[in-house]
């Protein structure tokens, strides 16, 4: 756990337990996390978790004292099974806590510690503000339904106590898993139940999606068949509720299950030293039990680091800085800005590449299957490949605009990954066998390079339009030998230089989109038995390619005075088509490539 995760929570409370305005502290906390995550080696002990609990806080002060003595790293490294692979508990905990509370580290606790507390002690939290209500309409409805005291807490936390959603079946689930006692239901009696109102509310169109999301968050709290902790036959792992339930606990179990029971026992007894020892014991037993399958300690460390950097997306900060410097370099033609910008850009690219390799290692995919197969991976991979290509182009022809374009593209891509990890599928999951083909990997790699280049043409086009708006349109042909495009000093005019960059990137984009699409056709032949099927994704890739082919042909016949402007406008059109293909087709239109 890093220091700011530990310190962020106590710092935002006063001694009276009343929170300061949540938004500012939340943003400050998030920014602090980003900065620390960007320099991941700066990591100190978890000692600063202690702090006064308020009536609005989730965790009790006794838990804070207990957590302060825990070896968070040992807990985080516990092996569990998630999405078809053996992951560290930290990974699963972050995903589940994000679902449940909207934060990966609620109140600054290490995710694995917070998650195990909520799992083992679920009964204690049925009346605490836990389940995130994100949608405004839903928040308003909930605020109207709650009693005054709960509504006041909800107004601050925007989280519902689970008791307001728990029904008989929900409590039974918790009892059977040994996560709550019948007395817990009595303790939560004061909480107004909303579960009876929700079916009627779901009839209203505007509440359908919010209620679906709320049920997913509530499901994360129930955690049925989520925490798989004990390896069993056939590659399946047994879920925790089969190990800890009142009936299961009385039955004999193997060493892993016994280890987890001991961990739970000492956890509930608030014996921090016992927990640390039990966690180490489980790791040892798992290592002996699984031998080859269990990820090496180095891979576990990489996974923890990767999680802490939000799947490498925090590098957006580096690309944003590089973007500012490259804009200054392009505007002032200052060499210092260029050197600094390219330096930051290269470092950011290297960090992004590290994250990419980390994901590859952690996923356990074959060496020929890079992590570029789902929306998140494709977007991040596209940012990386675009940045690498921009460095190559800048080395071949120093123009600033390649790096500028790639910086903005990477910043936007990484910000999307940072803020929308769930929607984009940031979790590392098992890969469908149909995708496990080197041809498929090459096809996707080429296509996402094409997407990066298309995105870069949009940035360069905007730069062209911006400069042209200031200096006036016209006379911006890209032929370097044309006198019209040269300054009195014999250099290319700014607009001509930008247009030249745009042309080079557009040519590359055209080539890669066409080649990537045809590679997809080759793969489709032996995977699906048809090389072309008018799937929406294929169709829109073809449309993107057609737009760029048309552009490159039209440049032959558009007059030199309007060539740059024409190119910029068509490149923006091509980018719009590409974005449509990447977003609308993936999430809205039905097809074999749909993620919806």
């Amino acid at each position: 756990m890093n220091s700011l995760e530990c310190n962020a929570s106590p710092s935002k409370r006063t001694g009276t337990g009343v929170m300061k305005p949540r938004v500012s502290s939340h943003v400050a906390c998030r920014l602090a996390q980003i900065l620390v995550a960007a320099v991941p080696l700066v990591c100190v002990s978890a000692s600063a978790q202690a702090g006064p609990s308020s009536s609005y806080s989730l965790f009790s002060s006794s838990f804070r004292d207990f957590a302060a003595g825990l070896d968070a790293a040992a807990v985080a490294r516990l092996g569990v099974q998630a999405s078809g692979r053996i992951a560290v508990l930290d990974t699963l905990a972050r995903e589940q806590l994000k679902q449940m509370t909207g934060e990966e580290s609620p109140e600054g606790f290490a995710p694995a510690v917070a998650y195990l507390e909520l799992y083992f002690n679920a009964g204690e939290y049925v009346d605490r503000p836990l389940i995130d209500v994100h949608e405004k309409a839903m928040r308003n409805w909930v605020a109207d339904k709650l009693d005054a005291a709960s509504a006041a807490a909800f107004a601050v936390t925007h989280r519902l106590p689970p008791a307001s959603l728990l029904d008989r079946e929900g409590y039974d689930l918790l009892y059977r898993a040994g996560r709550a006692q019948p007395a817990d239901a009595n303790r939560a009696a004061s909480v107004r139940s909303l579960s009876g109102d929700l079916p009627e509310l779901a009839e209203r169109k505007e509440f359908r999606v919010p209620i679906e999301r709320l049920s997913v968050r509530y499901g994360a709290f129930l955690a049925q068949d989520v925490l798989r902790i004990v390896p069993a036959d056939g590659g399946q792992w047994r879920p925790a509720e089969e190990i800890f339930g009142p009936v299961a606990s009385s039955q004999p179990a193997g060493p892993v299950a016994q280890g987890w029971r001991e961990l739970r026992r000492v956890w509930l007894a608030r014996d921090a030293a016992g927990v640390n020892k039990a966690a180490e014991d489980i790791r040892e037993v798992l290592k002996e039990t699984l031998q080859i399958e269990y990820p090496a300690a180095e891979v576990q460390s990489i996974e923890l680091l990767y999680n802490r950097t939000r799947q490498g997306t925090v590098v957006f900060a580096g690309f944003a800085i590089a973007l500012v410097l490259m804009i200054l370099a392009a505007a002032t033609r200052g060499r210092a800005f260029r050197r600094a910008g390219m330096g930051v850009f290269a470092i950011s690219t290297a960090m992004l590449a590290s994250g990419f390799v980390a994901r590859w290692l952690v996923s356990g995919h074959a060496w020929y299957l890079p992590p570029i197969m789902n929306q998140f991976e494709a977007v991040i991979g596209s940012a990386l490949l675009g940045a690498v290509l921009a460095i190559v182009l800048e080395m071949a022809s120093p123009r600033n605009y390649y790096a500028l374009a790639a910086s903005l593209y990477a910043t936007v891509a990484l910000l999307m990954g940072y803020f929308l990890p769930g929607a984009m599928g940031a979790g590392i999951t098992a890969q469908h066998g149909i995708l496990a083909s080197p041809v498929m990997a090459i096809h996707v790699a080429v296509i996402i390079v094409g997407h990066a280049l298309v995105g870069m043409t949009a940035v360069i086009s905007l730069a062209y339009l911006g400069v042209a708006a200031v200096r006036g349109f016209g006379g911006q042909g890209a032929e370097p030998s044309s006198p019209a495009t040269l300054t009195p000093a014999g250099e290319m005019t700014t607009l001509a230089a930008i247009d030249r960059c745009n042309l080079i990137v557009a040519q590359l984009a055209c080539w890669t989109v066409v080649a990537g699409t045809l590679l997809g056709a080759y793969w489709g032949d032996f995977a699906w038995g048809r090389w072309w099927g008018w799937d929406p994704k294929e169709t829109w890739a073809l449309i993107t390619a057609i737009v760029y082919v048309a552009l490159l042909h039209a440049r032959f016949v558009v007059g030199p005075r309007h060539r740059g402007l024409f190119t910029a406008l068509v490149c923006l059109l091509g980018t719009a088509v590409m974005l449509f293909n990447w977003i609308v087709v993936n999430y809205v239109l039905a097809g074999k490539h749909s993620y919806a």
Partner: protein
Amino acid sequence: MADIGRALAGTWLGVGLLLALAAFLAIVSTTYAWMPGMSRRDSTAIYQLWPIRATLIALSLAVCANILAACIFRVPRRWASLGAWISHAGLLVLAIGAVWYTLAAVTNADSVTVRWPGSDRWTEIRHVYLNNTYAVYLQDANRAVQAPLDLGDGKKPRTLDALLASGSGWQLRATGFLPSALILPAVRLRVTDANQPREIALSTETAERQQFVGDGYRIIFHPGVRRQQLAMMLRPAAPNTRRGLPEDTGMLLTGDEIPPTLVVLHTDGTQWHGALRPGATLDVPLAKRTVRIELLEFFERAQPVPADMPADHAGGETVSALEAVLTAGGERQPVVLQFSAYGHLTPPQAIRLPDGRTINASFSRRRLDLPAALQVTEARFESWPGSVVPKDYVCLARLDGHEVTISLNHPVYIGPYQFSQGSWADDPRNPNKIFFGVATRPGLPVIWAGCILVCLGFPVAFYVKPLLLRREQRGDTI
């Protein structure tokens, strides 16, 4: 001619055609769900509609004509234009391959193998089934015939006048298509009680329609009773041992193995039963009177229910069906043929002709014979640990005496047919039915040649051309 050619080779014309093609594709691929007869799932099926297909072909041909004309009249014949030549030639080769493929390929087809309950052996694969193409298969003692049926792309019946003549004195003419039908065994009876005849129809559609309540008796239509069940139901005593039965419950039994049989049971242990053939009558002796029951008709009745596509199970108990008229010996007999997607897996329907002969009929997707049989010997589903995400679907099979493996991304070839393991089965972990995607791939080498040329031509046009131009300007020869 040259003027026309030059006009056709215009760059603006080419750009315009390309943008028109792009706009057309964009519109079709986003608005298909709102087009008549289309749903959100039909993102690829939309291109089968003839107006869409015709527009697409017209635009593509126009683009190809423009490229060809440009090659002849516009692209200079010099080394610096090598890239343009290669990429344009590649596009034309690709277009030729695509046309060949479109005209000759068998696509959208599949095949299936089944492991019946209690058996550890998979059925041999001898056929490929085409989607959206249907046929009626008929067989009598002398010969087997088939007739393709045009159901209008599987959506609505369009042409149903297929006339099948076996040369054996019978003919079958399809008269209607029921996209989704409730196929019910039914009887039509004439019940005469106290000299008052009354026609009733019973079927299993609802509990009300399954029984007729008379004055002091009930007739319940209870089909599907097997011979063994009937034997258990009947007492060992000789039938009709007691005359003048108390008024009681009548049960009319029908099934594949037994003729319609009327059984009357009473709580005091008495019973009465008798076979009831079409046209025959039975006098059931009740306590104070006799009720005469005459079987007018026993038939499978198809009740239409709206649905989209031919399907084995269009929803619940319903299946798609074909209405037809069988003509034999001057008599006409209506028949209903149930649809079966994989005809060879379902026993054909036996239709009895008026003269006593029987013909077998089935209505299914059109099938093609494979040049060799494929025998699956083992099917294995591999998933990632702790997940249902498939890692691989593996089928071990024998083909022409050789062991072959069909798995994801690894198809096998049987003659011209490519068998792909694109999907799996009803229950992946314990499969009893495995589907293979099947296609032929005519013209594919031509397509790949075109693709390679296109991919080579672009970098030559973009990056080699400046070098070639520089050499040309220096006056070098290449």
